[in-house]
Every structure is written in structure tokens, then in C-alpha cells.
């Protein structure tokens, strides 16, 4: 796991790599975004970011740790002047090259294989990497209403 960055305005969670923790994780991220942005939080963008994060965590559970034991780290970056939320999902499971994955065959739908596609559709940016023995996915999404941004910068 990466060293802790004690900057104010970021929240971080570690949970066991288990489907049972998807719901605690999702509600924690949602409430933290509400704590941060209040009325300026755009609900539809938040829903999409949170499902993109859930796809990333589900892939860590199923593929990186192959449904075995492991820890998932999720960091939510709450930059005070930013208009974007950034969520970084980290694991220490097996490495993975997203470029090697074929996109879904939309003409022949199968039950599965949509996770990476949904992440890319619902995040504004979706980057993958590996530092030492840690894999990470960084999902970025604008979640603050535009009027708020203008009100602050004028």
C-alpha cells in the first residue's frame, strides 16, 4: 500500500476483499462526497462515479484476488477548490494489463464482461497502473455543479 498522505480533504478506507463490503464502501463514499460538497453535489454524476468504483472493486475481488483473501484500499480525494472527485482503488493481488482485454461484443451479449466498459463510460478519466506490488485504478469524475464553480472563481 502507498504511504499515507496526511493532506486535509482526503478520506481513505481499507476493507476485506469481499462482496459484503461493497455496500459499506459505497455509502461511505456517497456520504463523504455529501459532507464535502453538500448541495453542490450533482446526484447523477455521483451515481455514475460510485458504480464505476464498484466495478473496479468487484474486479479486484474476483480477478486480482480470485475471490481469495485480500485487502482493498479506496481513497477519495476531496480537493477543496477542485470540481472533480478522484477515487483510487488499490490492491496487492495479481497484476493486470487492461490493454489486453477485448471490449464487449455488443452484437452477442454475454452475462459478464461489461465492468471495464462501464468504468470507462461513467468516469471522466480511468487510468490503471502498478507501483511496486500495488495495482491501482484511478477514476476521476466531475461531480460539482457548474454554477458553484463559477460562483467561487469570480
Amino acid at each position, binding site marked *: 500500500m502507498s504511504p499515507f498522505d496526511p493532506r486535509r480533504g482526503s478520506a481513505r478506507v481499507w476493507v476485506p476483499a469481499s462482496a459484503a463490503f*461493497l*455496500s459499506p464502501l459505497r455509502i461511505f463514499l456517497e456520504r463523504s462526497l455529501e459532507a464535502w460538497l453538500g448541495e453542490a453535489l450533482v446526484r*447523477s454524476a455521483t451515481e455514475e462515479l460510485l*458504480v464505476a468504483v464498484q466495478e473496479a472493486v*468487484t474486479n479486484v*475481488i474476483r480477478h486480482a484476488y480470485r475471490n481469495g483473501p485480500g485487502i482493498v484500499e479506496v481513497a477519495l480525494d476531496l480537493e477543496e477548490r477542485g470540481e472533480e472527485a478522484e477515487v483510487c482503488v488499490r490492491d496487492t493481488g495479481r497484476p493486470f494489463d487492461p490493454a489486453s482485454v477485448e471490449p464487449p461484443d455488443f452484437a452477442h*451479449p454475454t452475462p459478464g464482461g*461489461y*465492468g471495464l466498459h*462501464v468504468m470507462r463510460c461513467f468516469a471522466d478519466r480511468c487510468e490503471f497502473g502498478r507501483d511496486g506490488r500495488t495495482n491501482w485504478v484511478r477514476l476521476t469524475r466531475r461531480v460539482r455543479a457548474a454554477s458553484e464553480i463559477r460562483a467561487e472563481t469570480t
Partner: protein
Amino acid sequence: MIREQPTVVSLDGDVDFASRKGVREKLLGAVGPGRPLLLVDLSGCGAVDSEGLAALLSVAQAIHERGGVMKFCSPSPFVERLFHVTRLGLVFEVHRDRRTALESF
């Protein structure tokens, strides 16, 4: 003309990786023997992710194999967007509300 009556199931919890087995069981358990006709009302469901959609697709395929039909109604705007980006909105028959869906059987 006598219209066939589908079984209607409302999904009220999450439809995701954590709940996918329960969702499959609930839907397949609701249809009786014979040719299954199933309407899934999505109005009350919680979080939905691609694994949840995959579970719905696998149920739809199982019902299709038995000569049956499975339709959906009342998705939230978010679930509509998820159907859209996965193109499953083209595979599933999705109705805006329950009345329209029932009339379509």
C-alpha cells in the same frame, strides 16, 4: 382475445455483484412450470452494477430457452443509462411504466 398474464416481480434491494445470486433465485423461483412470462419491475431497486445486469441477462436467457419472455419496467434514469452504455437496452424489452409493460404481453 385473452391476454396472457405475466408474473410480476419487483426487485427492491441492490442488483449487483453482492446480490446477484439472490436476484437470480428470486426471479427464477417466481415463474412456475410451463412457458414462463416474467415482468421485472425495477422501480424500487437500489444499487445496480454490471454484474447485476449480467445476472438479469442470464435469467432472460434461461427463460428464453424455455420458450418464455422476460420484460422490464420502470427503470430509474440511472438504470436507463446503464442499459444504454451496455447496449442491453437493445436486448431487453424495457417499458417506462408497469401498465404499458402489462399491456404489451
